[in-house]
């Protein structure tokens, strides 16, 4: 139990009176990349939002390293879906990464030289240093995603939450991002990724959390990626199962 970084017990969440998540319980060890997968409407984003304490829960406990989310929230980095960001916002790449240092600064303190250096360091890690003065809308999708990963790194978090980070981005960016996340995992950080398909699940994730309103299965990729378990979550979605069969064989 001591190396559990995230422990969720009997989590129930509803949206406007509609049940979104039912009785979710699982625990994650430190140093894992966990993929959150499931069909559309399975509650993947809802689970992510509950783990970030952004929406109220009806029942249940979420603990991070034995503490409540409120006590740990500065150590949780969040990479939003690209579609939720206003890319015309008057902000440069470096200032976007600098936001990652805000949680630790607290009220009234401004980022100083030390924070700037940290931001540049993180930008360098994702291979975007030469773009530091660009406006964020001038980048390609993959570059934008790398900038937000750099922002997450600047926060020096214990946990990473990424919402569909690989949607619509180029192969190089995808590789850069997954390599950085692996590096973080090897340093003992825990990474949660909401992911919409299973095609690269085996390559990217150590563990999978298969969701369809309730927890269908949580375990290693081998334990979860079995036709009888997958079909339990995706009942009826035949085309998807066929795709699965191809990738599993």
């Amino acid at each position, binding site marked *: 139990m001591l190396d559990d970084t995230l422990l969720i017990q009997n989590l129930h969440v509803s949206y406007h009176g509609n049940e979104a998540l039912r009785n979710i319980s699982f625990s994650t060890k430190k140093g894992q990349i966990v993929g959150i997968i499931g069909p559309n409407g399975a509650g993947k984003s809802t689970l992510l939002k509950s783990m970030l304490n952004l929406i109220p829960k009806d029942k249940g406990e979420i603990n991070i390293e034995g503490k409540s989310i409120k006590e740990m929230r500065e150590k949780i980095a969040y990479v939003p879906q690209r579609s939720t960001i206003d890319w015309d*916002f008057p902000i440069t790449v470096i200032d976007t990464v600098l936001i990652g240092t805000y949680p630790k*600064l607290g009220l009234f303190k401004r980022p100083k030289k030390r924070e700037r250096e940290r931001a540049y360091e993180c930008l360098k890690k994702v291979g975007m240093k030469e773009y530091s003065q660009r406006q964020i809308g001038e980048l390609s999708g993959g570059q934008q995603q790398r900038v937000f990963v750099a922002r997450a790194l600047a926060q020096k978090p214990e946990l990473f939450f990424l919402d569909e980070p690989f949607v619509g981005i180029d192969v190089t960016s995808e590789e850069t991002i997954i390599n950085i996340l692996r590096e973080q995992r090897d340093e003992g950080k825990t990474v949660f990724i909401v992911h919409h398909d299973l095609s690269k699940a085996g390559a990217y994730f150590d563990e999978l959390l298969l969701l369809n309103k309730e927890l269908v299965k949580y375990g290693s990729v081998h334990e979860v990626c079995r036709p009888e378990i997958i079909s339990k979550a995706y009942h009826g979605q035949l085309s998807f199962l066929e795709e699965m069969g191809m990738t599993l064989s």
Partner: protein
Amino acid sequence: MSIITFYESILQYEFLQRALITSVLVGIVCGVIGCFIILRGMSLMGDAISHAVLPGVAISYMLGINIFYGAVVTGLLTAIAIGYISQNSRIKDDTSIGIMFTAAFAVGIIVITLIQSSTDLYHILFGNVLAVPTSEMWMTLIVTVIVLLSVYLFFKELLVTTFDPTMSAAYGLPNKIIHYLLMALLTMSTVASLQTVGIVLVVAMLITPAATAYLLTNNLGLMVFLAAVFGVVASIIGLYFSFTYNLASGPTIVVVASTLFAVAFFLSPKQGVLWRSIRARKKRALVVQSDS
């Protein structure tokens, strides 16, 4: 009348000095707050709150208190009511804004025609900067100080809650409180602008200089600064024309602000329509060349 006579008149007439100081302050305060309003997609909200202060102004007249108090109360109540309606029904934001601000505005007009002559209503609606009393000038100064200080102290928080509210909520910022703080600042700025441009045109001072600045920079701090500069420039030039040709002050200031926007819209080096079409043409020419 030339600019020199305008300058001499400023030195000579105290009412003109008050007008100048007040409209410069209004230019600053509206420009600064306006940046956050347009970036949050709340231009309509700015319009709503400016109209919603009318019943507060009227009631303050009735009670014989400073219009500031009543205006802030009804402005904020309307902001809260708008949020409450769209969060608790299927009514969308723009509809709920439309319902609430016309209701407040209508009540305000009824109350004010009951208690005051129509001249006063005209001045509240359209402003009369040449008749600013000293007390109003001080009030505008206080509002300016409060707004600038708040934006300076909470710049980081305003930036992140505007740009990425999910992240700010995740690391524990009170998004809702910051929203209502901004609404309070917006209401105060509106009240401060009543004498200069009037209720109906305040929204122009809020969004036009900010939008002009938005076309010119990729840095929020610089945008806030530029918006204040454009607000001030519009106020001074507008006041000059208003005084020299005996035009209504509010509309004249707004027309100058809109002209500045038009110039930026066509000529801004990055976003300007003119340069964009020139760049597009150059590119097309290059493509044609390489084809042949």
